[in-house]
């Protein structure tokens, strides 16, 4: 059941209808049942696995808390972290590890290969594992107290708007919202509807139209220069797809009285890679910062160690996205881009060599251009098949290419995004459609035009969200 399907819409409407007729405890029971059915729609067995994981993490959280200050707490903490990572490792990385071993055997001339088992990857496992790690970690460092109710903790992991692709919510923010009565006011509910609709629009109209071009290009021999267009489209596809999912998730949660964290904040206006990662998939970047980068020492152990930490964090971040060489290199590449920026920032930008006007009209636009293209070209690493493929893509970057038809279609597809999120940027808002109450006529016009575009050029073949593969 995908957010962009009518089946899901019916499911959600039924849940919402019941939700507002129940008290907080029964609402939580409903959310648990809804989350379990929603998840089990993919695979019932994996649904039960998730229930076991929830129960074990719930118990571990209690054990850590009751033994805080003693060695046992450390033991249970390590058990929890290792257990969660082993589970993720088994499902996500076993095949990669075995394939890599076979590659090494082949490389050193050993005529031996390990048989590759068939392992089904539970959808959303990367997200719920991080959820559980942050729960255990936050109990250990006394940021939160463990949840007393298994029901509430189950909803924390099984809350269906964010179950499959985040945002990766923090226990400190989400658990109290589950525990306490939710107050849904009319404005939040209306804004939730708009966020949901806008998210689905981004997915169905923008992302899925761009994805057919990107996928086709990856299977074709490309003329020099086309790769730049592919990179551009791929960046907007992934953005529209994932931010669309996040907006839809946040909108649905908002309609039920939950406030989920902002996951995307106009990333393509970032003027540095460092700023970019504060705007793109914020819940993952901040998770990696808080649970990996800071424990590694962060920036407190000197400039060199800080940048080594960044490389470690981003390599892990790359592997979190997927167990392939492509993701590994992509993670390393992202880390490398940040390190390069840090060096430039440390040696040139920080010293305020440029007057503010040059900084505003020259340095920042260059930064914006470089940030966007470094990210876009980096995304191409997702599709790398082998080294020769990488070289052929890289050699195409220098060519020039223009196709009027491609240009016109891109403009038509991206105009709604530029208008809606351009307004958000212009008025320095964190979210789109905050203007809806002040300008009802404009909202009506936007709805009519949006419905026209949605029904005429929206792709209704069910296409999974890009981030489900992670």
């Amino acid at each position, binding site marked *: 059941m995908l957010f962009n*399907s*009518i*089946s*899901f819409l*019916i499911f959600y409407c039924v849940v919402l209808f019941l939700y507002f007729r129940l008290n907080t405890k029964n609402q939580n029971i409903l959310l648990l049942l809804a989350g379990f059915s929603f998840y089990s729609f993919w695979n019932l067995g994996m649904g039960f696995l998730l229930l076991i994981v929830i129960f074990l993490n719930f118990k571990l959280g209690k054990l850590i808390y009751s033994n805080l200050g003693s060695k046992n707490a450390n033991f249970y903490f390590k058990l929890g972290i290792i257990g969660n990572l082993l589970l993720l490792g088994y499902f996500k990385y076993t095949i990669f590890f075995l394939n890599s071993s076979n590659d090494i055997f082949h490389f050193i001339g050993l005529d031996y290969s390990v048989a590759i088992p068939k392992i089904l990857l539970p959808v959303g496992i990367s997200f719920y594992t991080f959820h559980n790690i942050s729960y255990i970690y936050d109990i250990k460092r006394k940021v939160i107290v463990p949840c007393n109710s298994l029901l509430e903790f189950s909803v924390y992991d099984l809350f269906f708007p964010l179950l499959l692709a985040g945002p990766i919510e923090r226990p400190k923010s989400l658990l109290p919202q589950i525990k306490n009565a939710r107050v849904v006011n009319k404005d939040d509910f*209306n804004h939730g*509807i708009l966020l949901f609709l806008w998210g689905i629009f981004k997915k169905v109209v923008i992302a899925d*139209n*761009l994805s*057919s*071009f990107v996928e*086709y*290009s990856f299977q*074709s*021999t*490309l*003329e020099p220069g*086309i790769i730049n267009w592919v990179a551009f*489209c791929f960046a907007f596809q992934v953005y529209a797809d994932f931010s669309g999912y996040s907006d839809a998730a946040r909108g649905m949660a908002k309609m039920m009285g939950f406030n989920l964290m902002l996951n995307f904040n106009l990333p393509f206006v970032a003027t540095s890679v460092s700023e970019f990662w504060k705007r793109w998939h914020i819940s993952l970047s901040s998770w990696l910062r808080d649970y990996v980068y800071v424990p590694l020492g962060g920036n407190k152990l000197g400039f060199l160690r800080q940048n080594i930490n960044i490389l470690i964090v981003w390599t892990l971040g790359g592997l979190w996205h997927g167990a392939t060489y492509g993701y590994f290199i992509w993670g390393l590449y992202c880390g490398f881009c940040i390190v390069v920026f840090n060096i430039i920032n440390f040696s040139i930008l920080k010293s305020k060599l440029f007057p503010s006007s040059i900084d505003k009209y020259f340095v920042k636009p260059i930064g914006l251009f470089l940030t966007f293209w470094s990210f876009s070209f980096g995304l191409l690493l997702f599709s790398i098949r082998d080294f020769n493929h990488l070289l052929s893509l890289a050699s195409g970057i220098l060519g020039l290419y223009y*196709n*009027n*038809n*491609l240009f*016109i*279609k*891109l403009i038509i597809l991206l105009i709604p995004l530029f208008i809606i999120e351009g307004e958000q940027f212009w008025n320095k808002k964190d979210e789109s459609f905050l203007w*809806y*109450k002040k300008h*009802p006529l404009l*909202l*009506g*016009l936007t*709805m*009519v035009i949006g*419905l*026209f575009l949605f*029904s*005429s*050029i*929206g*792709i*209704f073949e069910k296409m999974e969200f890009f981030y489900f593969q992670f």
Partner: protein
Amino acid sequence: MKRILLLSTFIFLILGNIFTPLISGYLEESSYFWYWTSQREIIKKRYNYIFLGDSQWISGIDLSILAKNLNVSENDILIYAKPSQQLEGIELDLKFLKSKGITADHYLINLSSTSTTVNKVFYTFKNLELAFGINSWKILIEPNLWRTFYKDIGSYFYHAISEFCLLLKFNSNTTSLFKIIPTIDSDFTTSKDLETRLGPNIFDLLNSTKRKNLIMKDKLGSKGLWDWKNYTQDNSSNECIEKISLPKLDQALKLAFAKERKESINILQRIATHSIDMRSDLTLVNIPFTAQMREIESVFPIVWKSLDSPEKRYKMIEVPSNIFDLRHYNDYTHFNQCGAKLFSEILSEKMK
């Protein structure tokens, strides 16, 4: 905001329904044909012959020869065939015609691999029927058709919504044209070169589609016959000259026609009962494909044979395939005008 949402949805629906006839000119050929049929006016109530089935009829009949040989007027024959038509659609059309009081002494239905096996054409048919079938909304209230037309509750509701929001019915057409890599049935879409696959300018593409549909509409006239995919004023397919060179079909395609669609045979029996109720004759016709195509048909000959039982309630006509060669075809499955003349001669002889 509730009022704004409702009002804008209402305005959108009104405007969408106003725009629909304008957009119809830009549909791809099969959709356009179905749309044209849904708008078609049938003036007579009683016919001698009604032909129901798919595009094999559309390009396979020479009405003047048929009428002359059967000793009836051309107006006594109604060709009510649609591209990719299946027996489910034929049953719905029969009901529709009956509801309008349009009946015939004889009904003729063509059967082939495409209508009796599990293959892609069936899925194309489902989309066409749901979007452009006459009275397609009736499927929503006929539970015995749900299993055929809907794969889940979502597709049921999608169809229900599209009955109000006509733009949704055009969605697969508009998206295939608008996609960055268009997926329409055209020469450039088979190219391996990306530059070519990006296609001509979208406006040129729209104009060319509209021009083709106007030609098709003109050729269809009121008879519903068309030399399949011939958009020129050229009548050279009247001449029996081999103009096409068809590559040998991939034998893997055998798989596409390897599984009988049992439901289609059940429906055929229902149609037979229906025709008896109407005191009309029913005739099943096997119109031959090209030799290459016949080679890969594994199941249809068996199905055809199984229909020829002693208790059958219909006539069966098998037109001999060996008298046709590539001079008579436009492609693997459709006769050209030369083939239509020969076929109509033989068919009318067998119908007597």
